[in-house]
């Protein structure tokens, strides 16, 4: 690696790197959550930080999600920049009162006098029997709340850059990390690398179909879009990066060009973010649309624990490629995308559980 090469990191290492940079930069940053300093360090994302920065600033907590969220709010009002981590989003549901009634509203309900710079990392589980209450992506629930920002990165560089922006921002951020992305590698700039919140990333350019994705579905979409490009179907692939605020300009500009929209939603279909995007596009870009927009989301049912029942549950590259073909009105080869060298319920053969 040359002097100026961009380091290659896993997503988990990139998150840890962002936390280390933030802790180094500002003594006001604190990092806590159940298991933060434990031997596994939240899938490697917090390993060694307590040794490096001390137990005053990096610490474990009681299994008291609601209070510990309020503690983060109070600490933020007292001048700190807390980062709270939940090993699953599902656990954070115990803290909805503090998130929705306090964190999201403090700025508003006290007349804009004070905001709450609190970052809440929530890890999204999937597969390996995570089941009904360890695998929910409820991004739409959080995105529904005025005052919350919802970030959902797909790449290590974005994870680092968006996490740093979140930590040093003024207002609360829900930071959604997909467990299956933790092992994914990518070039990740060193140092205080920041990416603006609210700006999408155009991963591929093409004039036929607009594909909007986020989190792990951006990686599935990348496979699909490259696969259909070889068959002459050129797509804009928009990785949202941020669920709220949404980068409407990026979506509308693309749809006005392509006239065809496919939205991928890692949450349940009903009341989901894809529905919001399609509603907005149909009301604002109606004249540009060549046909009805399409969405692929998770079913309106919880994820089963049994591997036998999760075969068709998630949106995969082959579904995306087929949907692009549907939008274009011509069949595209997609079946070959479903041939994987590993079982469907793990991100790769190196993942052998347990969570």
């Amino acid at each position, binding site marked *: 690696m040359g002097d100026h090469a961009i380091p290659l990191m896993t997503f988990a290492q990139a998150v840890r790197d962002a936390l280390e940079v933030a802790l180094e930069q500002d003594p006001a940053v604190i990092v806590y959550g159940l298991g933060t300093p434990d031997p596994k360090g939240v899938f490697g994302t917090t390993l060694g930080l307590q040794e490096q920065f001390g137990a005053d600033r990096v610490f474990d907590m009681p299994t008291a999600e609601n*209070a510990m969220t309020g503690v983060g709010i109070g600490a933020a*009002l*007292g*001048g700190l920049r807390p980062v709270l981590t939940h090993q699953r989003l599902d656990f954070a549901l115990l803290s909805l009162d503090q998130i929705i*009634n*306090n964190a999201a509203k403090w700025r508003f309900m006290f007349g804009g006098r004070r905001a709450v710079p609190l970052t809440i990392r929530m890890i999204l589980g999937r597969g390996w029997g995570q089941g009904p209450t360890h695998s929910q992506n409820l991004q739409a629930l959080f995105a529904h709340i005025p005052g919350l920002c919802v970030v959902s990165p797909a790449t290590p560089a974005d994870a680092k850059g968006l996490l740093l922006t979140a930590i040093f*921002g003024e*207002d609360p951020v829900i930071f959604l990390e997909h467990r299956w992305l933790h092992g994914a590698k990518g070039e990740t700039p060193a140092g205080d690398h920041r990416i603006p919140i609210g700006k999408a990333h155009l991963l591929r350019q093409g004039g036929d179909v607009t594909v909007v994705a986020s989190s792990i579905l951006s990686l599935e979409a990348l496979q699909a879009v490259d696969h259909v490009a070889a068959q002459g179907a050129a797509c804009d692939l928009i990785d949202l990066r941020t669920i*709220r605020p949404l980068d409407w300009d990026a979506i509308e500009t693309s749809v006005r060009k392509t006239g065809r929209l496919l939205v991928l939603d890692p949450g349940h279909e009903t009341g989901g973010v894809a529905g919001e995007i399609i509603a907005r596009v149909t009301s604002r870009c109606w004249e540009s649309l060549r046909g009805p927009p399409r969405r692929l989301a998770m079913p309106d049912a919880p994820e089963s624990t049994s591997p036998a029942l999760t075969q068709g549950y998630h949106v995969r590259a082959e579904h995306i490629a087929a949907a692009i073909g549907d939008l274009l009105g011509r069949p595209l080869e997609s079946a070959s995308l479903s041939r994987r060298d590993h079982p469907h319920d793990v991100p790769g053969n190196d993942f052998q559980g347990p969570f």
Partner: protein
Amino acid sequence: MVHPLDPGVALRILRDMIRIRAVEEAIADRYAEQKMRCPTHLSIGQEGPAAAVGAVLGRQDLAVSGHRAHAHYLAKGGDLPAMIAEIYGKATGCSRGNGGSMHLVDEAVGFMGSTAIVGGTVPVGVGLALSLSVARRPGLVCIFIGDAVLETGVFYEAAGFAAVRKLPVLFVCENNLYSVYSSLEVRQPAGRALAEVAGALGLQASSGDGNDPRAAYGLLKSAADRVRNGAGPQFVELATYRWREHCGPLFDNDLGYRTEAEYLAWKARDPIPRLTEELRSEGTLDPAWLATTQAEIQAEIESAFAFADVSPFPDQALAYADVSSWEITPFP
């Protein structure tokens, strides 16, 4: 027990109680004008604990509270005109009209916020204490709660963390026996003492009569001193009673959820005449001081209401301005 109290402190407590009651009665008197268009929870009858806390806390100390917070805000030194203007929904209100009676804030004097969800500011107060601890700053955080907060899970969660980290927190529990119209009997098993529950959580706990302001001050001062000496979180339960309806300006003994006899018994324990008489009999209360104080307070209140009345409403164009700095383009 009459706490050996500096006469200056006793007069301060008396003045604060008189002032809080006068403000609350002025709100009650004017509520029917329909200019204060928000739910308003008055502290008439339970001024004792707030005034005693006000005398214990210093400028660098912080406080948070719940829905019945006027007394706490005023005792901590909160700006009166900004409070009245807030209840009027005016731009000059302490929360610029977005919060109303249940969202008071005056960070300049350490009143960090009161909110409308029971128990909601308990962990926020503990977090403020954490920030003092991490930054090695002096001071403590007073968390005002009512008896119903000991029925919320978040209290147990937050108290546990405060105890684990030995944070500088003073819980002040005003036990007025009712959560809206529900008495303690339907909310706690018979014989359960709230202070004992708090003690079991690792909070050093005491309890006393909130309508005996000097006794209350004594308990609070001892507890605050222990916090300042690094003993960790303390809990003081003070018995008191709200005279008027849960929310609003009226009396509600006709509803039947509590008896007229109970109300009259508590009214006979009014903390203001009690302390007035004590100080008078001890020769530390000058009748002229009392008259002057009452006149000053009335003038201050008239001025605060006049300020609220003539203050402008917030600009409609700024109605959604304070949602989030992240919102580049608000949702349509």
